[in-house]
């Protein structure tokens, strides 16, 4: 099986670096962008980086618990996307914008 031979050539640290880079890209997006939809998408990106790390550790340690956790993270991500987008639609109806910088009413 060719995927198994590739698996045997890789160390866990390669996946750690890859998912850390993905997580940092997502974090940069959350800090830098203002469009609320892009912010939600960057959060999805960060969750996926964590998922990748979970699957990598699960496969390397031969323990399927990590993959079960990825299921639960996916569920939470789906719920978060649904509620977040509903809030976003509500904000858009009220302000005609999806810019998060208009949401500073709590500043007083």
């Amino acid at each position, binding site marked *: 099986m060719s995927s198994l031979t590739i698996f045997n050539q890789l160390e866990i640290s390669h996946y750690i670096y890859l998912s850390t880079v993905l997580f940092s890209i997502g974090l940069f997006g959350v800090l830098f962008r203002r469009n609320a939809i892009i912010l939600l*998408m960057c959060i999805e990106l960060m969750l996926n980086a964590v998922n990748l790390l979970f699957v990598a550790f699960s496969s390397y340690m031969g323990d399927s618990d990590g993959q079960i956790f990825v299921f639960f993270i996916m569920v939470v991500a789906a719920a978060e996307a649904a509620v977040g987008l509903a809030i976003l639609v509500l904000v858009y109806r009220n302000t005609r914008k999806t810019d998060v910088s208009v949401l500073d009413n709590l500043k007083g």
Partner: protein
Amino acid sequence: MNLPIPFLILSFLTILSALYVVTSKSPVHSVLALIFTFFTISAHYVLLNAQFLAVVNLIVYAGAIMVLFLFVLMLLNLSKEIEPIKSNAWAIAATISAGSILLMITAAFQVFGEAVAKNPVEGIGLVKALGNVLFTRFLVPFELTGILFLAAMVGAVLLGKREKKPTELSTNETINP
């Protein structure tokens, strides 16, 4: 250090499309790049012998969540919106923050990652093995997840419907006094 070519190509594509998600001006391009990122992450799952999760990732993320995002983009007609660009100070601050997180996590894992012994077990990512674990040891969390989903569904519907009452109220108020 000689890495296998498929892993290198996949990682390159993943990081490139993730960067495009963050830097693209058009939200629709961002969504499409994110879908591509999910496809490459699914390919990574296949490389890691997590075949079932690869399929689930495609169905749930690329199939359901991203379609939701696209629907919202199209409904709100945001595809052409030009976002005001944050100042350079913000860009520098965001780069420094993300870079220091990157540095910190890699430094932390450098010590820890070596301790993981490679112990692959055959067929761990297949439906049979995962279903066995999910419906025995993780049964209670699985059921609680169903309740969480129900709550999220009710919340999303409630948030979406809330609009009617305030507008009616406000029009009544403007008419009555």
